[in-house]
């Protein structure tokens, strides 16, 4: 594999957020993934950052949906359609 077909730690780190959000091209995703397989330091950082994002999502998504919201919205739409 030539040097051009590998990412350095710096090139990998620059793509951290986009990689975790799957916003890179397929080639970039592959190159970052390959770097993480051989670089424990970067892998540790990426793993931690992914864990933070996952944890924040999990906590923010714990919600109660009011039982009557659906019915109230439906009633409002029926009323609006008749007016």
């Amino acid at each position, binding site marked *: 594999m030539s040097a051009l077909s590998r990412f350095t730690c710096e090139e990998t780190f620059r793509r951290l957020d986009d990689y975790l959000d799957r916003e890179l091209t397929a080639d970039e995703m592959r190159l970052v993934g390959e770097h993480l397989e051989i670089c424990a330091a970067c892998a540790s950082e990426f793993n931690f950052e992914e*864990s933070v994002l*996952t944890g924040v*999502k999990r906590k923010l998504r714990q919600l109660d949906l009011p039982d009557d919201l659906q019915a109230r919205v439906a009633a409002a739409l029926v009323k609006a359609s008749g007016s």
Partner: protein
Amino acid sequence: MTATKDIAGQGPTPVATPAQRASLGTGEFQVLLAQILPAAYGYALRLARSRADAEDLVQEAALNAFRGQRGFEAGTNFKAWYFRILTNCFWSKRRQDQRRPRSVDLDDTPDLYLYTRSAEHGLPQDGADPASLLLDRIGTGRVVEAIAQLPEEFRVASILYFMEDFTYHEIAEILGVPVGTIRSRLHRGRKMLQKTLWQGALEAGIVSAGQVEAEAEVDPPGANV
């Protein structure tokens, strides 16, 4: 009130067909809306930070969407379209509301803030889910508060990202700004969020000079804020 559950991030992305658009009646519109209502309420609640205001937002957006459904392009993302209307309703109310929460200015936050601070405090950084212990001890309430403290444009983009797993492109579509702007807001926003979370942990005594306090708050199962 239903039992606490994860109501966000898993909703379908309904797409109205051209045939539906031509004859979208109240019932058909309701079917499309019903599929995304839990997600919409979750988004609205994190935006408005009040259950009553969130319910008002969802209902107002539903009425606006129903009345303006000719503006919906068949075959496109109904959920993104409705979320854009809901966001506009929020901005409209926001402009009239002078009681805005304090926001933080943390734009100089370095990368890997929590990772670095965790290392300095001897917290685990490896394993299947290394940040879970820290976030569990920080607690849902402080996570919600940390999001709320982000400057408004970072906060709204971040809520769309964390609550619904929208792509950058979808968030850009909802907020009507370029994708590059969303990328920047999300990346900077999560750095600010990490610093705010750490500050909250310090202020609450969850982390001290050397370790995670064993007696710190831990969310009970099913906790919701």
